[in-house]
């Protein structure tokens, strides 16, 4: 190829790129809309040409007719622009209205042709991908679908325990200005990490419209408020502090469920003497150790001081914290040696297989046992936490730049509704955030949790984002992870105190 030919080729390509859109001009025509009955031989193009001056204006007829159909079903509903039948009633817009419509019409958005009913998409971000969680979410999707059949639900899930991976993806999308409409958010101070004033929309109006302030308990509402606004609609409540035990192994060793730390360690010794692994952990996920620590902390210092630690009213140098670290250290010394190799589900499996007697984990473990058809387990509160409900909750938030804010608002209404929560929670293995759910829908464990939820002192979970800012949680997790191996109480307590200062809560 000669140089000149090559250059011409370039020139031609450039010209091609510069070819613009064709311009359509319309002649002045009827000022009012016309009801038209289709006759044999008509098509949208000729009708548009006749009434609106140009065949290219056909989308205006289609959209206007479809919109009318929603209110008045004697009008046709056109699903295929090439197919209209004689006898169909169409609504042809005024030339003015058609012009306005065409100015905003975008061929890449065919939903504009189908009236208000089909409102495009609803993009939901969550980390619910497996087991009961995904089924519960699907249950809420079904309810949404019956109400808004033409909205396409885009389930933007990213797998990964406690949302560790999902949050990374989400934050990138938030900063990049391409957020999902709504996403899963741990209720509580985790919202601070999303800089809600910038990236989220307050939901106070939804709370008013749906009467949610009356439906949720007071403690939960306090937990949900950040900077005097609600930023999420909670769908469920989980309990962090549950001690699960294998009944058969307890019987074998002749022990009773422990209620204090002394009893707990005595039970551990008794089980160990029988050759039974007393206490099971799985820490490979990175958060599980902190999860257990928060329950030990609450059980050692009590509800009031525990709350104070996160509010800055209890100093981290408190001897109660020292004692909690000592208790935790002793607890870990009874744990299975391979705990860094397995995650919480792996640990739960040890209980199912009778390879371990006790296991502290949130009540999603109950769902795991159910899925494995394991029934020979009992539950109690971990040492010292009787009467304390360490709570966490999943909520959904509305992003400030949501592409489909109306659809998202409808979704949040479903999340907060009785119907939505009753569809979600029995599947997920959690209790309703609302107080009026029907207990008969839930299994025995969840019924007991519902009873406790109503009467216990509710304190926020740390490991699951309720008690503290995300950056603070991250620091505590690091400190606890180191503590498991070093066992250095003094330096860990110092690190915890430093984390509180870093978070700006302590001085």
């Amino acid at each position: 190829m000669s140089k000149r030919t090559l250059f011409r080729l370039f020139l031609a390509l450039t010209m091609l790129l510069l070819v613009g859109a064709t311009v359509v001009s319309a002649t002045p025509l009827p000022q009012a809309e016309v009801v038209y009955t289709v006759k044999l031989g008509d098509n949208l193009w000729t009708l548009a040409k006749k009434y609106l001056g140009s065949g290219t204006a056909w989308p205006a007829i289609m959209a206007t007719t479809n919109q009318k159909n929603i209110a008045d079903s004697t009008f046709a509903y056109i699903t295929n622009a090439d197919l209209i039948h004689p006898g169909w009633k169409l609504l042809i817009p005024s030339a003015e209205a058609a012009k306005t419509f065409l100015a905003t019409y975008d061929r890449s958005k065919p939903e504009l042709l189908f009236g208000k009913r089909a409102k495009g998409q609803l993009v939901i971000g969550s980390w619910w991908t497996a087991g009961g969680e995904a089924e519960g979410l699907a249950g809420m999707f079904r309810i949404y679908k019956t109400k808004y059949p033409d909205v396409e639900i885009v389930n933007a899930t990213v797998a990964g325990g406690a949302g560790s991976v999902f949050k990374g993806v989400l934050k990138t999308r938030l900063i990049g200005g391409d957020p999902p409409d709504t996403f899963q958010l741990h209720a509580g101070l985790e919202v601070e990490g999303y800089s809600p004033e910038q990236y989220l929309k307050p939901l106070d109006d939804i709370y008013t419209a749906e009467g949610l302030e009356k439906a949720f308990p007071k403690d939960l509402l306090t937990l949900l408020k950040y900077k005097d606004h609600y930023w999420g609609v909670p769908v469920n409540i989980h309990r962090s502090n549950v001690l699960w035990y294998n009944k058969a192994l307890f019987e074998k060793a002749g022990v009773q469920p422990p209620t204090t730390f002394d009893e707990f360690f005595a039970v551990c010794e008794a089980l160990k003497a029988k050759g039974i692994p007393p206490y099971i952990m799985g820490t490979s996920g990175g958060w599980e150790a902190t999860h257990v620590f928060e329950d030990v902390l609450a059980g050692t210092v009590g509800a009031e001081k525990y709350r104070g630690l996160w509010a800055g009213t209890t100093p981290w140098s408190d001897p109660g914290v020292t004692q909690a670290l000592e208790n935790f250290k002793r607890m870990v010394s009874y744990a299975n040696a391979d705990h860094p190799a397995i995650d919480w589900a792996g640990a739960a499996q040890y209980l199912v297989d009778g390879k371990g007697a006790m296991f502290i984990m949130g009540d999603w473990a109950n769902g795991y046992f159910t899925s494995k058809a394991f029934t020979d387990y009992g539950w109690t509160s971990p040492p010292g936490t009787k009467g304390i409900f360490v709570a966490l909750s999943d909520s959904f938030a509305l992003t400030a730049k949501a592409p489909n804010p109306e659809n998202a608002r409808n979704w949040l209404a479903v999340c907060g509704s009785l119907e939505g929560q009753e569809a979600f929670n029995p599947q997920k293995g959690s209790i309703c955030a609302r107080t009026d759910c029907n207990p008969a829908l839930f299994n025995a464990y969840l019924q007991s949790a519902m009873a406790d939820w109503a009467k216990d002192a509710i304190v926020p979970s740390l490991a699951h984002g309720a008690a503290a800012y995300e950056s603070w949680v991250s620091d505590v997790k690091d400190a606890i992870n180191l503590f498991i191996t070093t066992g250095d109480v003094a330096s860990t307590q110092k690190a915890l105190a430093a984390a509180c200062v870093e978070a700006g809560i302590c001085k």
Partner: protein
Amino acid sequence: MRHVNWERIVSVLLLAPSAIASAIFVYGFIGFTGFASLTKWNQLVPDFTLVGLGNYRGLFVHPRFQIDLRNTVVFTVLFLLSCLALGFLLAVLLDQRIRGEGVFRSIYLFPMAISLIVTGVVWRWLLNPGTPEGGSTGVNLLLESIGLGFLKWGWFTDPTVLYIRPESGIGQLLHRVGLGMFTSPNFGMSVAMVSVVLAATWQMSGYTMALYLAGLRSIPDELREAARVDGASELQILRHIIVPLLKPITLSAVIILGHISLKIYDLVVAMTGPGIGFSTDVPAYFMWETTFEGNRFARGASIATILLLMVAILIVPYLVSSTRREAQI
């Protein structure tokens, strides 16, 4: 001007898109990361107030980052040594013109075709030690059943850190000469890292073998023949002829494997996570967590910059010397 150099213009035009793209998406973003690491951006909303090297100072006193640096060095050294040794051994063995060479070559090279994530998951299962009460699993079970039970250990769940104890003889000696700092666990080695090295070596030693094999095949037979005529033993040939001639190959292998190991992330994520007491934590993992869980974007950017510098220290001299050599030719 009739004599316009069209060829030159066309070539510039053709190169421009990729040049612009890499200027923005590679160098632009590197620059932005470097800039972000000097700012106060430690929450979700960007805050570009400059704070100088504050983020770096914070990092180097952060206990987790100190452990990460230690782990990176330990991993890189062990991984390089084992890959080079094993790769070289396999290449020399394969070079003996054995029957079925192609089959063996494919078998050894094959792990490289697998994603590090898959490698990580599989080795996580294999090296899961099991519990004393529940019995061994994976490799430990294998060792047990072939009568080598004394070899089994906790693999990546073992939190032990080997380091020079201050109270030991060498420790006291170091103290006396003012090098007491080397007697802290931060200058030690966490034994859990061995498991990760094992998995990484399994994956990459075949590749090293392929590099060495190509090098061996390019050594002319005349050189060996001449040495043999002079009465050199096979071992002497290996030591005095083959190894020196393979130096450039070794250098390339070190560069390629070295930058993989400095940046290692996926294998650790899939296999062990940060590990117990951060025994298998690496800077890239800390970078991810501190950025996207802790919302400390500036600190994450600092770690990224440090990683870049570490890789640059390894690669830049190589690039410079190879461009010089090309220029000479």
